């Protein structure tokens, strides 16, 4: 798989696309892909990610450029712009408990019909959701999340698309790579095939559709 220029990768994303984005408070988010989305001005995006980061980093750049119509996230507390746009009614924010969010993405990627979680039972999170009793305990049925594109940031990629991650930059990345129709990955280093030991590959090559070149 020959890496492609970031502009070419991002050109495939239409306005209105649903993006699954790796990263946790900006750590492990593919910054160059995000920057190029801002440069190309993709509009009306839905972003599914852990959080909207802090101003100036990761997903916050998409928020600041007013490209996001809907954010499905667990946390917006470190990004006042997200709050402002939410209160102004230009951005819809769906808050999801973090453990539920990652399981919903996993369910989307793993072909499951949903997640039965105790988290949120008896709180405002349960509004509008089905409760399922299993052996006398109530669980919320949380539905799968999928995306049109996953934007993934790896530490190492090889030239067929195997990915491995560095430390806490792993976070949502391996899960979003399973849950999108098209996976675009960036990596700190792109290495020849065979240099990542089979046991150290976290995202198998067949999941990755496009690798962004390090120019």
């Amino acid at each position: 798989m020959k890496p492609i220029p970031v502009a070419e990768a991002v050109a495939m994303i239409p306005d209105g696309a649903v993006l699954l984005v790796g990263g946790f408070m900006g750590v492990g988010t593919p910054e160059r892909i995000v920057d190029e989305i801002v440069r190309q001005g993709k509009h009306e995006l839905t972003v599914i990610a852990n959080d909207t980061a802090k101003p100036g980093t990761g997903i916050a750049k998409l928020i600041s450029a007013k490209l996001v119509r809907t954010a499905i996230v667990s946390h917006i507390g470190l990004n006042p712009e997200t709050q402002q746009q939410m209160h102004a009614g230009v951005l819809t924010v769906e808050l999801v408990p973090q453990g539920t969010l990652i399981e919903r993405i996993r369910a989307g990627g793993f072909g499951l019909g949903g997640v039965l979680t105790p988290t949120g039972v008896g709180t405002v999170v349960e509004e509008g959701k089905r409760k399922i009793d299993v052996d006398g305990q109530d669980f919320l049925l949380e539905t799968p999340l999928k995306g049109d594109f996953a934007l993934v940031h790896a530490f190492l990629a090889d030239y067929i698309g195997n990915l491995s991650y560095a430390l806490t930059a792993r976070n949502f990345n391996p899960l979003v790579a399973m849950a999108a129709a098209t996976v675009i990955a960036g990596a700190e280093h792109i290495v020849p095939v065979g240099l990542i030991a089979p046991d150290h590959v976290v995202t198998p090559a067949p999941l990755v559709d496009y690798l962004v070149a390090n120019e």
Partner: protein
Amino acid sequence: MDAQTLIARRIARELRTGMLVNLGIGIPTLVANYVPANIDVFFQSENGLIGTGPIPEAGMAHPTLTDAGGRPVTALPGACTFDSAISFGLIRGGHVDMTVLGGLQVDQRGLLANWMIPGKMVPGMGGAMDLATGAKRVVVAMQHVAKGKSKIVKQCSLPLTSVRPVDLVVTELAVIAFSEGRATLSERAPGISIEEISEATEAELIIPQRVPEMIL
């Protein structure tokens, strides 16, 4: 000793060797500074790390080794990293032996509200709901009173974090234990009387004959 230090030091005494512990932001984070000598615990950072160490010295951080707030941390020998699904599997599955969370209100049954104030800022629940629901033991670190009002209430007026009751609340005045839907005053802060605690507490407290002072 200021209130935050007192709370953090008292909670640190709940730690036992081998425990997997998750500390929330705010006062809970301070608990890591007071781990008793000879106690070895694992600290989990829910962004995907077990074995979180102290804040790195200047010039010795790495951008991919961070805490749940995105700030640089270190990793101790034997640390390990993992994705967010595993991180919350550890939390929801009861593998986290103890979590320390901040609180806005705890009611007399032990129900916690700590994630939003309607009409004010809505930061999102992050991992709080999973931690409050899934950790084996939930300890709340908070001030006893805010703006003249008790935070240990008869019933939470703020949105709940979980319907699973917390186990322990530690404030600058008292340690309160919850079991079977009832709140028991189990310790007083040094120099604080039972009357002072009762006065600062809206919830009904069971007060045993003997309420020892906290050992810090």
